Structures are given as structure tokens and as C-alpha cells.
């Protein structure tokens, strides 16, 4: 790692970038080893990291209203993970590495010394907020990436469309063939939530 760091030309922003990419991946490998878990694996996300994403998404996309769709009920996790899988493998590895660091960050940043997935919902919120509003740019960057992926997975589920009065099927500019396909999707997913 030191040799790689020295290879980077000595501009501060390049060093910072190195820490945010290669440094992040290496740190995540160390974390995985320390926890006895498999390391980040592009195109085949290890279960423990899937669980971190699931917990993060559940809190980030949570709504209070009783009738609101729940991320875990609408397939948001699968959509988020497949969105990440479409990125270049090196980017996906960085994203999984971010999840690994989120999992162990409470040991350093609180609110109590435990894995992120072992915290209560309220504690997870506090922890995520500490990333969102951190003085450390790297943590804010991490939160922005995490939030974008979580939201992309959730708010693209047709089961959420009713909440925002959005519909592809009812859009008159969409070709009839697609409107019919989307009408089925929107109906099935709405049904799934109603009876979920």
C-alpha cells in the first residue's frame, strides 16, 4: 500500500482520491479478515455486505405513514444491488468496500460499539446521519453514494409510484405496447404491497 501511495504523484487531491478508492478497498479487505467474513467480491456480493445494504436501505428509504411502501416488501434491495452490478467492477468493489466500513464504523464513531447491523433502528439513523453531515468529506461522499443507490433501488419500484401519483402506464406519450407492460407491472406490485 505504501509503495502504491508513493506511485501516486504528490498532489494532495490525488492522495485523497487514492485513499478513497484503492485505500477504501484495502481497508475493507482488512475489515473482512478481522470479522472473519469474505472480502468484497464484484458481481457476487457477499451475504454480510448484502445485509448491510439491506439495513441501510431500510432506514434511508423508510417512511412513517402506515400505508407507505416498505423497502423490504417491494424488492428494493435486489434492484439496488443489480444497479450497482452494472457499474464497472472496480466501482462495485469500492461500493461494497464502503458497506464494509459502514458495518464496522460504529466501533469508532458510535453511537455504541457494535456492528452497524446489530444497532437498533434509531441508532442506525443516528449513525447514518453522522455520515451525511460529517466534517469528513470522505464520509459525506460515502453517504451520497449509498443514498443514491438506495433511492434508485426503492423509488423505481412500481409499488412506490402510487405514493407520488406517478405512472408509466398512464402516460399518454408512452407507446401502447409499453403502457400495457407497465400496467401489468404496476398492478402486480401494488397488489403485492396491499396484501404484503
Amino acid at each position, binding site marked *: 500500500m505504501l509503495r502504491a501511495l508513493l506511485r501516486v504523484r504528490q498532489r494532495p487531491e490525488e492522495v485523497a482520491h487514492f485513499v478513497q478508492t484503492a485505500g477504501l478497498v484495502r481497508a475493507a479487505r482488512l475489515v473482512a479478515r478481522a470479522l472473519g467474513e469474505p472480502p468484497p467480491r464484484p458481481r457476487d456480493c457477499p451475504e454480510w455486505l448484502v445485509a448491510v445494504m439491506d439495513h441501510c436501505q431500510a432506514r434511508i428509504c423508510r417512511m*412513517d405513514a402506515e400505508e407507505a411502501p416498505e423497502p423490504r416488501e417491494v424488492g428494493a434491495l435486489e434492484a439496488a444491488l443489480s*444497479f450497482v452490478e*452494472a*457499474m464497472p467492477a*472496480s466501482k462495485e468493489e469500492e461500493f461494497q468496500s464502503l458497506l464494509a466500513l459502514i458495518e464496522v464504523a460504529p466501533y469508532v464513531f458510535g453511537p455504541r460499539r457494535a456492528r452497524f447491523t446489530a444497532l437498533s433502528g434509531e441508532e442506525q439513523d443516528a449513525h447514518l446521519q453522522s455520515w451525511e453531515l460529517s466534517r469528513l468529506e470522505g464520509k459525506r461522499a460515502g453517504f451520497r453514494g449509498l443514498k*443514491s443507490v438506495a433511492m*434508485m433501488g426503492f423509488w423505481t419500484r412500481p409499488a412506490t409510484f402510487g405514493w407520488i401519483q406517478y405512472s408509466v402506464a398512464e402516460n399518454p*406519450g408512452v407507446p401502447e405496447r409499453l403502457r400495457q407492460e407497465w400496467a401489468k407491472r404496476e398492478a402486480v406490485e401494488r397488489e403485492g404491497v396491499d396484501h404484503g
Partner: protein
Amino acid sequence: MAELPTGMISACEGREPLKLSAQVVVVGLGAGGGMVLRELADRGVDVLGVELGDYFSPEDMTLAEEEMLPRLFLEGASRATVDMSVSVMQGMGVGGSTLHNTSLCKRLPQGILDEWERLGLTGLGEELREDFEAVEEALNVHRIPDDRVNRNNELLLKGVEALGYQGGRLAYNRKLCQASGFCEVGCPNDGKENAARALVLPALKVGARVLVHARVDRVLHQAGAVVGVRGRARDPETGADGVPFEIQADAVVLSASAPNSAALAMKSEVPDPKGLIGSRLHMHPGAFVMGVFDEPVQGWLGVPQSAECTEFLEFGKGAKRRVWLVSGFAHPGAAAGLMPGFGPAHGALMGLYPHVAAVIAMVHDHYGGRVAPGPAERVNLYYGLPLSELEQVALGMREAARILFAAGARQVILPTAPPRLVEDMTEAAQLTAADLGPFSPPLVAVHPMSTMWMGVDPETSVVDPFGAHHLLKGLHVADGSLFPSSIGGPPQIPIYALARRVARAISL
């Protein structure tokens, strides 16, 4: 995946390394590359276009954001500056960014042309006007009709008119548009006269060839002249590397976008004694400001962008106000990422989505960042906004709020961290550059440019006024890299026009 048209092959088809030759290789088939391909093919030149992404037919456009964004945008729609504070959305595929843009058309403003003339650039008068006219005719550019201005854009126009600001309706290049509003995730109606439809397909009919799913890793050169390119197939499903390919050519045209063309030139060790390539990166960073209205806005219905405000857009070195205000819209997946906060507070804001009109405050940036190659098609974009540019962001956000209030918004969301939900202009007017910084607000850039700019002096520019590299014979540039400065507006028409003159100047 669409069946490829005659003349187009996939680099992933075979298992053996691919060896090809052509007189001219065009790297990247967006606005610039498409234009060069078409112009050269029309002249009977043996021209081969190489494209990293897919070829899309209208039937490929599923309208599912989470599926289409990674296919239509570089790096799976995750490209950003290295500090992640600016998302950089750039197209990929035959047609490049014209596949997902909202087809806005503007010529280079006179203020920019004057600035470039002062830098010594020639041929920007009558000659360039002819290129603009030819491009506009070929692409069916026309003023956006009244009945295509949706409620989101009407509100911007209403605010602009109420304040007496300069602004109005824009022009676009569409023919078969059905106003589905899905421009940014791939038009299902083939409604745009994009580079694929208007240039690449006609070029194939007159003998051009295209290789898709192919990433150029190096421009080959020896003894001061280019001799071809080499690279690798890229699996469109997994992004995995495939077989190598090599193409011999007498000339190479870089049109892979400002970041990727510059990164490729750097990786290829193109002569650059002054270290200019990749520097001076401009990108029009923009902040979304959202107004909440009592009436439904439903920005997803109809043409997403058709109106602008130019009141605060000045050109020239000493310009004090450098903000282009234009309507903004995103489908729910992307919109949710831009809406501030998370959890129930964010969910409540998303509940307002049908009542939200948005204005993007886009900065005509004087600050220049830089580009460095990353692994494969990844590019490292170093771009940290200094205070002078943050002041422009703050100006743009304040004025966007003023326009939205003037249009009748009951509340405006300023997506700072933490977010400000303001009820009147007194509160919004308090926003200053001191309140802003990385991630506050989240910025989005869709116009990276100026990484291999034109000029007459090899000491201070990378290519000549017609896109030919000053030092490496046979290397040409035909994309947004060419701009010597940020342009303060949509770049597609200037790219098409400059690429046309680059093509005309290529002699074999």
C-alpha cells in the same frame, strides 16, 4: 439487445483477436463522432467508428430507470468527480449523450465567439455560421412549439415574465416526439433526431463501418504520425474485457467526450510538452432548486426541458454573473437521490414530487479542473469548486428561488446540507457562498468540456482551430474537448458544428 444494422459489428462476436484497417478511425460515436463519421462517409472515405457502448433501437428502451441508466451512461451512471461532490452524467452508446439529452439546441453565443476570437481562433464568422445552418437543417432544429411546453416549464416562463427577466422558449431537434417525457432514460418513440438516427445510420448506408462494444485503450503512433488504435472488446452485459482488437489507420479522430478523449490521449503518450492535455476541464456544475406548488405540476408528463432564463448569464473574462437557469426534471429514482435528507423527512418531501417544479442553476464556469486516466473507461476528474464559483452557485440558487416564488411556489427547497425549506424570498436571499461546499448542495454536471482545446499557438493549445493536433500528424479531436472555454449553454449543436468543420479539414 437490438439486432445490429448492416455495417455494424460487435467486438464481442468472435473469439479471435480482431485486426481491421480503415483510412480514418473515429473513437466514440456521440454528436462529434457521429458527425465526422457521416461527413467522411459522404465523401467516400473508408471510415470506421468505434463505440464502447451498445446500439439501441427504440424497442430497447424499457423506461425502467434502474435498467436504462447504467446502459446509457458511462460507468453505470456512477461517474463523479474524485471527491464525489459533482455527479457527472455522460452518455455511452451509438449516439453518445444525444441518446439521453433533452435535445436542447443553441448556437455558440456571440459573447463566447468574441472571447474565442480574442484568443486568436479564426473561421468563427461566416464559415461557422454555415456549419451551424447545415447542422440545424440536418437535425431538424426548430423552436419548441407552445403545445410542447409542459407545466414545469410554463412555471419557469411565468416566473421569468413576472420578474421581467430575460429568457424564453428554447429550440430542440425532434421529429417523431410523442412527449413521453422519457428523454433521459432513452426515448421509446425514436422521437429525437439524435446522432445515431440522423448521422450514424445514414453513414452506414453509404459505406461507413461501426464496431460496437469496443474500448480503445491506446492511439498507436510512430515517428510523429498516428498509425491506428488498439483496445479490447467490452461485454455489454457484464462490462468484462473480451478479445483484443487493433485497427490500422492513417488518421484517428478522438470524439469520446472531453474526459475520455483526453484520458485516452494521455494513456497513449500523445506529445504534450506543456502538459496541457486534460487540464482546463469545465463542466457547467448545476444545482437543483425545487419549488412546491399547490397545483399539480407532474413534471414527468411532456417535454422535460423547453424554457430558460439568461438574465444572469454574462460572458467574458470579467463577467460578474455567470449562471444559466433552465428547467429541471428527473424521474423518481434519480429525483429521490437529489431530494435532501433521508428517512421519513425525505419520504415526506417525495410525497410533494407531483407538485414540484425545478430549476437548475448551471454555472458557466471559469474555474478549470483536470482529467487523469483511470482503469479501463474510468476517468479521474479533479474538480473542486473555488469560492468564486460557489458564489455563482449561490447566485443561481437564489435567483432560481426568486423565479419559483414569482411563479407562485408556496415553498422552495434549497438542497443544502442541512436542507433549507424556505417560505419566502427574504429567507432564500440569505443564502451565500459561505453556506455552500462539497455536497451542499449536491451538484450535477452534464457538459464536461475543454480538455484539448483549439488554438493557434502550440505553446498554449492542444489542437489547431480545425481540431488537428499541433504535434501528432493524423490525430484530430471532434468533441467538447475542443472548446477553449466553458460555453454557458447546451453543447450539442456547437459540438456538431465544430465536428463538421473538423471533418472537412481532414485531408488524406
